């Protein structure tokens, strides 16, 4: 049995089905990311795992115990909220020690544990301050320390990086990953940011409209998306989808290259590509254009700057995609299909 199991989890708010049947098995020590756009149900799912929402159906098992009926304080979980939820009227020390005081642990132990947690997150010097005196990054670490100090079985993180400055986010992500690896706590991380997800998770569960579309490693999800939603949600820019009679043909912009670049003999499909506009991002060039009789410049090619090929807007070129980089999706269901003959 996995460490955390969600079976048939459902949550309905009146008519609205926020979570519509989710099955998920999470191994001990795993860092799993639940990725999806706003409103897909990921936060509701997390709140059910935490015990802040009562499921309409299904059950939740943590460490072999069915916790579905139990309130948050009876589950061995810790949670970091998007807003960090630091208690404004308490010092940082009191914030971090709050869960320990709730369990009525002896003072000596409390002090030791708080020092330990603060040490891991590098915030020892902030212990006497108040939340309002701290920066965003510091507050986030306090929230993590507070979660850590309980030594929980599962740690739940609800978009904890979205309130940080863009520059801070990358280093915070890095630290978070090393932090989790060294401590080995099973972690469930919820986000809408696919770059975060790809960078952090051992596995990613992509959610939309209350259902999990696909679960897999970042590579699996990226290379072998299960449906058009996953295909277009991941990747920046998203996968190109060409309308082709009964199905869509999909290929990623970085696999869509000028013919002369891909000349190693692998089987390819050729597309006449008229370039509309070019965005030079420094490290890459994004070419927006049309294939065949498309109307707008919807198809994108991502050319690394290392490829020195001259491309002019308004001109048509022969672009190719390797056959094994092509993906086929059923038009009706959006699901992945086996390779089709065109």
């Amino acid at each position: 049995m996995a460490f955390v199991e969600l079976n048939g989890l459902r949550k309905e708010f009146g008519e609205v089905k926020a979570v519509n049947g989710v099955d998920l098995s999470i191994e001990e020590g795993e860092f799993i990311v639940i990725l999806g756009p706003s409103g897909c149900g990921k936060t509701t799912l997390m709140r059910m795992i935490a015990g802040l929402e009562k499921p309409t159906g299904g059950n939740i098992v943590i460490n072999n115990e069915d916790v579905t009926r139990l309130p948050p304080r009876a589950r061995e979980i810790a949670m970091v909220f998007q807003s960090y939820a630091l208690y404004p009227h308490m010092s940082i020390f009191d914030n971090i020690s709050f869960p320990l005081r709730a369990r009525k642990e002896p003072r000596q132990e409390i002090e030791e544990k708080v020092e330990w947690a603060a040490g891991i997150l590098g915030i020892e010097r902030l212990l006497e301050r108040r939340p309002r005196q701290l920066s965003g990054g510091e507050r986030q670490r306090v929230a993590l320390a507070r979660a850590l100090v309980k030594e929980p079985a599962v740690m739940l993180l609800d978009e904890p990086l979205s309130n940080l400055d863009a520059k801070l986010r990358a280093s915070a992500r890095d630290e978070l990953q090393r932090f989790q690896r060294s401590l080995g706590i099973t972690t469930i991380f919820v986000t809408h940011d696919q770059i975060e997800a790809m960078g952090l998770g051992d596995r990613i569960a992509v959610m939309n409209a209350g259902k999990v579309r696909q679960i897999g490693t970042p590579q699996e999800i990226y290379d072998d998306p299960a449906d058009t939603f996953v295909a277009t949600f991941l990747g920046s820019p998203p996968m190109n989808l060409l309308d082709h009679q009964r199905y869509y043909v999909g290929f990623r912009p970085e696999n869509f290259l000028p013919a002369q670049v891909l000349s190693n003999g692998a089987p390819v499909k050729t597309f006449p590509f008229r370039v509309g506009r070019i965005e030079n991002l420094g490290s890459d060039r994004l070419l927006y254009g049309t294939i065949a009789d498309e109307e707008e410049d919807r198809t994108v090619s991502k050319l690394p700057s290392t490829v020195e090929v001259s491309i002019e807007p308004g001109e048509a070129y022969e672009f190719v995609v390797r056959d094994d980089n092509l993906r086929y999706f059923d038009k009706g269901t959006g699901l992945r299909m086996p390779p089709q003959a065109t």
Partner: protein
Amino acid sequence: MTETVEEAVAPDLVAYPAPETPRGRYLADHEGLMGTLFLAPAVLYIVLLVGIPFFLAIAFSVTDVTVGNTSMDFVGLDNFRRVVTTPQFRRALLNTFFFAVVTQIIVIILANILALIMTRDFPGKWLARFAIILPWATPISLGTIGWLWILDSKFSPIDWVLQQIGLLGPDTLLGPGRHLLYLGREELAMGSVILVHVWRILPLATVILMAGLTSVPQDLLDQAEVDGASFSRIHFQVVLPLILPIMSIALLFGLIFTFSDMVVAFVLTRGGPVYYTQVLPLWAWFKGIDGGSLSEGAAIALFIFPVLLAVAILILRSARRSEVA
């Protein structure tokens, strides 16, 4: 699309039953129970001491109950008929509306001005605020007693000042008497009642408007100044619309306090001279408690309620609608 995806991705969806509510040691988390328990005493109080008396008032008004007589016999609309046909009642009804409306008009204008002044910084502001709050902080009856003296027919300080500057007395503008009978003459008595009401309500309205003014974003004011608008244009076209919801609340409270008040009239004039400053709440007390005819008193008092309700709903609705998101 969702249907077929459901089949494909989660083919063996078993219907798990909904989890039960927490019991035993997790009772303190049982939100439904907590919610009801927490709310119950308040609801009880309101039902027992507001709801039931309200219906009792209606019951009284259609019976012949008096202070002495504990039996209640149904008399239909007799009480209402008897009450409504008296000149005192009609005067009281008129006065109640008149005092309330005129007071509010004066108060709103003055409060706007005063609030604008009070939202500035100046030395001695705490003291000024203290002075301005005083009329509202003082118990109504006690404040009115102060005015009782100031408006006295013999010893009024106002009269003394007017005499000194030659406006009162023989051969003067307001003469020939040496005293203006503020509480003895019909128009002056009505004016006095309104004066005391204004004096009392102004602080409340001012404070509420001050809160409204400080909530206007500075950005908007700066923008208007850059756009070249004058002070009055800024105030009337930018500020006023924004504080309209709060002003409505101030208006609502002021109206209610004046409309349902019996203290000012009681202490100042007892409804006199004759019945020229009579108001419904005071008249209800005279008839019901002082006179002993509970049923007539109830009938009179009931006239207060529909107006109050209508005004409250109107103002709350318009406050909602005029709220700028």
